[in-house]
């Protein structure tokens, strides 16, 4: 079995150690005998066919550099999702999944509109440790931990569910108690740290979801997550102080 991951703009969108997310996907596949093929895709490169597309965050300037190229791929990415691919956007990558990002000076950056959400810059950055309660599979509540650092206030369109409920931290906008977005196989979040190492259940959910669209029912062997659980426990305790 093989998981194909496309890391979009790895040279531009990598500010919060996004590479850690790739390392986790790669190792957790290989430890189970699943091949993991991670391909980068930069401006002008052909978009690889993938089971999972990953879009990280970048510095403002780097982000502006790739947006025109990304907008040109909006239809292809929407088609890939309709065909069963999963998508994960983190920080700036999360904002770009939506319709638009409006800056302080009325400057606008368009997104690909894959998900019905939009973001407006706020005055103060929302920075700190985060704890979320998530329930991607009904009846199986999970804890998600990490760090957020964003000026954007994101609002989800009607009927859209956040990735999780904020237990500690600010979340999408510091007001409605939601963090991130979950729209079928498309996830977006401000949580980095990076996201996946301390939240192995989410890494496995992504691997499973991405594989299942094309391979049918896939069961993942459990792994020894002693260190992962301990790192999550400590992160939750620090966030709760």
């Amino acid at each position, binding site marked *: 079995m093989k998981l194909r991951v496309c890391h979009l703009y790895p040279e531009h969108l990598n500010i919060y*150690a996004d590479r850690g997310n790739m390392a986790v996907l790669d190792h957790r596949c290989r430890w189970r005998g699943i091949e993991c093929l991670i391909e980068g895709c930069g401006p002008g490169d052909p978009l690889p066919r993938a089971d999972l597309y990953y879009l990280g965050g970048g510095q403002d300037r780097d982000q502006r550099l790739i947006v025109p190229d990304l907008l040109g791929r909006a239809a292809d990415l929407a088609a890939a999702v309709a065909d069963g691919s999963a998508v994960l956007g983190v920080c700036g990558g999360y904002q770009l999944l939506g319709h638009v990002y409006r800056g302080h000076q009325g400057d606008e950056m368009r997104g690909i509109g894959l998900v019905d959400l939009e973001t407006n810059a706020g005055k103060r950055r929302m920075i700190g440790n985060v704890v979320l309660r998530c329930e991607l599979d009904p009846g199986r509540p999970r804890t998600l931990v990490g760090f957020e650092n964003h000026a954007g206030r994101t609002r989800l369109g009607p009927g859209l569910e956040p990735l999780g409920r904020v237990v500690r931290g600010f979340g999408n906008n510091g007001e409605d108690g939601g963090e991130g977005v979950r729209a079928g196989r498309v996830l977006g979040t401000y949580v980095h740290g990076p996201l996946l190492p301390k939240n192995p259940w989410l890494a496995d959910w992504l691997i499973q979801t991405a594989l299942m669209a094309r391979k049918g029912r896939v069961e993942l062997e459990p792994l020894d997550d002693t260190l992962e659980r*301990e790192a999550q426990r*400590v992160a939750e305790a620090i966030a709760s102080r």
Partner: protein
Amino acid sequence: MLFGAKLAAARAAKAASRITRAGGGTTLPGKLLLRMDPEAIRRMAGRLSSTTLISATNGKTTTAKMAASVLEESGHALRRNAGGANLSSGVASALIDARRGETGLFEVDEAALPGVAAALQPGRVVLGNLFRDQLDRYGELELIGERWRAMVAAPGFGATVVFNVDDPLVASIGAEAASGLTFGLDDEAAGAGTMQHAADSKWCPRCGTRLVYSTVFLGHLGHWRCPNCGLERPRPEVRATEVRAIGLEASEFVLHMPAGDVPVRLPIPGLYNVYNALAAAAIGASHGVEPAGVGRGLARFSAAFGRFERVVLAGRPAVLLLVKNPAGTNEVIRTLAADSHPKTLLVALNDRIADGRDVSWIWDVDFEELVPQVESVVTTGTRAAEMALRLKYAGLSPTRIAVEPDMAHAVDTIGGEAGSPAYLLATYTAMLELRALLEQRGVVRPYWEAA
């Protein structure tokens, strides 16, 4: 209150904090003085005969210590903020006891630099490098770059800018100075060839095109040019050739200065320390120190607080390594990995404000390079488990990793094992804790004395 009285109050506070050992008076007296008189630094600046400010993401403390060694060699009496307190409060604290005619030599935090420079009116400002640092504290490095650029371009800025031409962003800022002195590495063989993951300034600072490198030395430092607008690395006036690592003991290179060449043996490993030595040599050159004197000064340099500082812990040799951000840690990792002996590590990761609350950066460090040589590692600090997790995903078997959040216990674990040297990597506040523990065991001096 007259300024003299305010100064006396600040001096008393400094003496008191030395006696109570509350950090050696490196910050608080200055903070107190600046609160009483925000113009205090400007008022005290005139006592110094000339002043040099050193700023960079990485290498400030080591560069300042190397420059001190060089300048002392030629008879300068120095006034320094040697305890590493590099905000305006730290500079003010150091100035409290300044004597007339002393030469000022201060390391200054990147964000604090424009303010300190405006107050002190230095003769020289050294711009070493700009790397991705603690994002939760300072925002993005380009913002710091813009503040440096505005400082250099401001009317009335009279300092000679000593700058690293191998860093594209820093080079473009230095080029705007009315008076400049450049330094850089001129040894293509010392290059790493490929760019590391954490490389930051990959884009032309003038037109935004991706830069082309004929050689990358570390991070984004190297021989660069823009294929679009033609901007390129200027030729450095102070430079190193024939760089050679002597195990984990030293580096040797030929130092070229406008006044002549000299072979240097620098008693600390790492290519990044060659950069620090070049900055120190350039400071010496601008003070008129002869090449031979610069060479002697660099040769008798001893490591600053936690920068390849060697100690003996319960009979076992140990090396203290401060780690703060991906670029600096990558250089520590690469320097250690160049020595193929099996290694015992202690890695102390804290997430306090001075360390950066966000510990994501450890995932941008190439720990993978060191994994083949790691016999065993103890992780400690507030984020001990997270550090262990990073090493696990770098390919280290969890059976070789012990998670011991209690630092005293972690240190004793390391101290108890005989044999090869232990390498102790620690973030800033973790290093302070570690040193306090080593002090209790009689291994090191207090940091404000050791620096």
